[in-house]
């Protein structure tokens, strides 16, 4: 029997606000434990939350970018449960009235574009972290770091529209691209600022009713998500094939052992006793506020992709990479202001620039060459001032030297020789030295011209204009 996979994803993305959602503490990642806390996020007796309005703005940005209905009158709710890293004994979240509903995200699949529905996006506060570190305490003890407590989160719940781990990957990639474009989250899965849980079930192809689902947690990278989903899908299909039932359960992915294990029953049988948060007044998104958020939205990835295709006439492959992040696309456009061979810019960005970013593990924002300097370099190639191979040396030099392109060419002595009489001298010398090759050419082995060009380049220390060298050689050999 053939089985169909049904996946719904729940993503928690940490927001890049300066301060926490209900107090003034910093949200910076990686500080000493319990240094970014105050009585409010510590849940001291007598404290009250005050909403950071930036969180509402960030939620609206994502809601608009994912075609959601936006709720204008927003309330918070308390989700009650006991855990040591939850100081108040409840999490302030949204329950019956999420800020965004009924949206979608468009992904690319093997069968073309597909819309994955979004059931809801809501605002909530993060909890702290429980740390088990036997360097400090015994194995029976737990350390609590409350720095993360009160960091704003958006929870994004997809409809069960995803049909394969591949689609799940595409959905997460798209969502992460969106939060980064919108500058609301760094989308970093490994650091935990972009977290994903999955609901998975399988059913025989053609069956309308959903199968029994399991919930999969603790997938801390894109690779884990793929592996964990594959694992759980196979497990469920095998159960069904052997006439067994899937048990509704919450599973924890173990990336070391590559397996998912059920959580203990006690940890999942929660009745969260949601009720409206009485310490916060409803927050109303009036028209001026809503419009100001809407008008400040950046160009979104799909739009930018289409525009790059038509405006710069680039291949879809190049465009997809260049528009993957806003910063990369912006860099391209900055270069394109000064240099109009767009395909050449793209080649360099996908080639030398990308390689450098990879090697130095930096982002385009930290890339040492300004768009203007890269444009000058490309102009120098285009204007036959330097050869492409010389340009790569200049590029390397520019990475670690604060000089202009002209100065670098000068310093490296790579200025291309385009003076026909000088090139002719090199050509003549080579033709007289390599008589065997000349004879071979004349006998029809025209491929040997490559060797002769190489000899001229060697003689000119790489500075001769290769186009001129090759056409002059050809002219003389065929004369």
């Amino acid at each position: 029997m053939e089985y169909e996979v049904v996946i719904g994803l729940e993503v928690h993305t940490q927001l890049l606000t300066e301060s926490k959602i209900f107090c003034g503490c910093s949200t910076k990642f990686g500080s000493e434990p319990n240094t970014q806390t105050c009585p409010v996020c510590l849940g001291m007796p007598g404290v009250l939350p005050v909403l950071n309005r930036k969180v509402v703005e960030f939620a609206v940005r994502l809601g608009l970018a994912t075609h959601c209905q936006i709720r204008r009158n927003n309330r918070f709710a308390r989700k009650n449960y006991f855990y040591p890293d939850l100081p108040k004994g409840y999490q302030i979240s949204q329950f019956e009235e999420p800020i965004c509903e009924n949206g979608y995200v468009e992904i690319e699949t093997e069968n073309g574009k597909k819309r994955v529905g979004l059931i809801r996006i809501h605002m909530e506060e993060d909890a702290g972290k429980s740390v088990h570190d036997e360097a400090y305490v015994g194995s029976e003890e737990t350390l609590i770091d409350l720095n993360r407590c009160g960091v704003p989160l958006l929870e994004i719940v997809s409809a069960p529209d995803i049909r394969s781990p591949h689609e799940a990957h595409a959905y997460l990639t798209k969502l992460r691209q969106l939060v980064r474009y919108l500058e609301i989250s760094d989308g970093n899965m490994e650091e935990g600022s972009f977290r994903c849980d999955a609901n998975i079930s399988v059913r025989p192809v053609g069956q309308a009713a959903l199968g029994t689902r399991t919930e999969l947690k603790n997938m801390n990278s894109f690779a884990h998500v793929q592996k964990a989903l594959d694992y759980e899908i196979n497990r469920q299909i095998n159960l069904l094939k052997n006439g067994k039932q899937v048990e509704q359960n919450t599973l924890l992915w173990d990336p070391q052992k590559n397996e998912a294990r059920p959580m203990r029953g006690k940890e999942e049988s929660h009745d969260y006793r949601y009720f409206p948060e009485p310490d916060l007044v409803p927050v109303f998104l009036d028209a001026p506020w809503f419009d100001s958020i809407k008008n400040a939205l950046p160009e979104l990835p799909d739009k930018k992709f289409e525009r790059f295709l038509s405006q710069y006439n680039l291949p879809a492959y190049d465009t997809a990479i260049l528009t993957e992040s806003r910063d990369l696309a912006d860099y391209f456009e900055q270069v394109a202001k000064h240099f109009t061979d767009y395909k050449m810019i793209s080649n360099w960005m996908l080639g030398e620039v990308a390689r450098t970013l990879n090697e130095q593990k930096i982002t385009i924002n930290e890339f040492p060459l300004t768009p203007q300097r890269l444009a000058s370099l490309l102009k120098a190639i285009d204007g036959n001032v330097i050869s492409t191979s010389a340009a790569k040396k200049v590029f390397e030099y520019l990475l670690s030297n604060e000089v202009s392109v002209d100065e670098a060419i000068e310093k490296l002595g790579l200025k291309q020789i385009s003076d026909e009489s000088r090139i002719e001298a090199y050509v003549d010398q080579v033709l007289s030295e390599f008589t065997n090759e000349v004879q071979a050419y004349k006998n029809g082995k025209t491929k040997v011209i490559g060797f002769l060009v190489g000899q001229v380049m060697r003689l000119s220390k790489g500075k001769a204009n290769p186009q001129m060298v090759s056409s002059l050689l050809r002219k003389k050999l065929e004369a």
Partner: protein
Amino acid sequence: MAIKDNINIKDHKTTCASKILESFISPFDATVIEKLKAADVIFIGKTNMDEFAMGSSSENSIFGAVKNPYDPERVAGGSSGGSAVAVAIGACDAALGSETGGSIRQPASFTGLVGVKPTYGRVSRYGLVAYASSLDQIGAFAKTSEDAALILKTIAGHDVHDSTSAAEPVPDYDRVVGKEIKGLKIGLPEEYFAEGLDPEIRSGIMNAVRQLEKEGAKIETFSLPQTRYAIATYYIIATAEASSNLARYDGVRYGYRAQDAGDLNEMYEKTRSEGFGEEVKRRILLGTYVLSAGYYDAYYKKAMQVRRLIKDELNSAFQKYDAIITPTTPTTAFRLGEKIDDPLTMYLMDIYTVTANLAGICAMNAPVGKNSDRLPFGLQIMAPAFKEECLFQLGAFFEK
């Protein structure tokens, strides 16, 4: 001034009269304390109360019961009993208490004081240890309406730390003291004068009302039929919120922690079983129950709907009346231990006061006399939201 021990003063203990916070020292000042400090108020101490403000007699305390200075065999009322007594015996000029369902007005009545519960949102709750967030409000005890007005003027106003505090401007409340009451329209809701009211209190209040009439106020009897649901509504909403507000006392970060627990859940269970008193546990259990899956709609949600009806009914009465006058309590101070084992009877002590908290309006106890046992009692004045001036105006009249 004396301060109820559920209001934070920086670097001092805030115990809420509970074992679970017995050693807790607050790292910050409540907003009301900041304001009083700025006005050069001297604090003489923190006062005893019912644990976490849950009670109507100030007997639910790890420090023992508060006694009534008019008869030490009797309760001072609660939950702000300690603050009431501190003022009644002249230990201080005034005191802060807190209200959730009558915790200032009732002890004020039992000790012959002015006790004001301001409109919800009039005074910042930042630094007040939460019992039921949508009902809690800080208020004051004083010997006169003028003193109470001055204190409210000092502590009222919007606070950036409390989103539920109101932006409404704060008037000079004390200016209304001595203002003529001629032309004021006063309503007497018949449900508040029905069965169960001590006849001596009834006649004392009616005497006071006749004085008003003599001075030209217009008195009318009317009906508030939703009142009979007030106690039930109150004890569902208050306990639901309390079950969540008190979840933070888990022994993890501060306060009492049971020592001999084997694992996390046992630590929670033992800490909370040993750290909380009976009444607090009763209310946490009740509140947990009414919020539970399957019961939420029948209890909590229904109570919120009834609360709306009660509020609407009172607000429409205020279309007709400037103020409503009722008894504050059905009886004078009862004997220590008399009701402590009978929570339902104890809950009924709040029957006249909880409506003001549910509706979010302001109300005050004004002392009107003593009964034949020389025990004081007062009457309750209720006024529309943010019309505290009317309370002080009428209170000052009765004092005269």
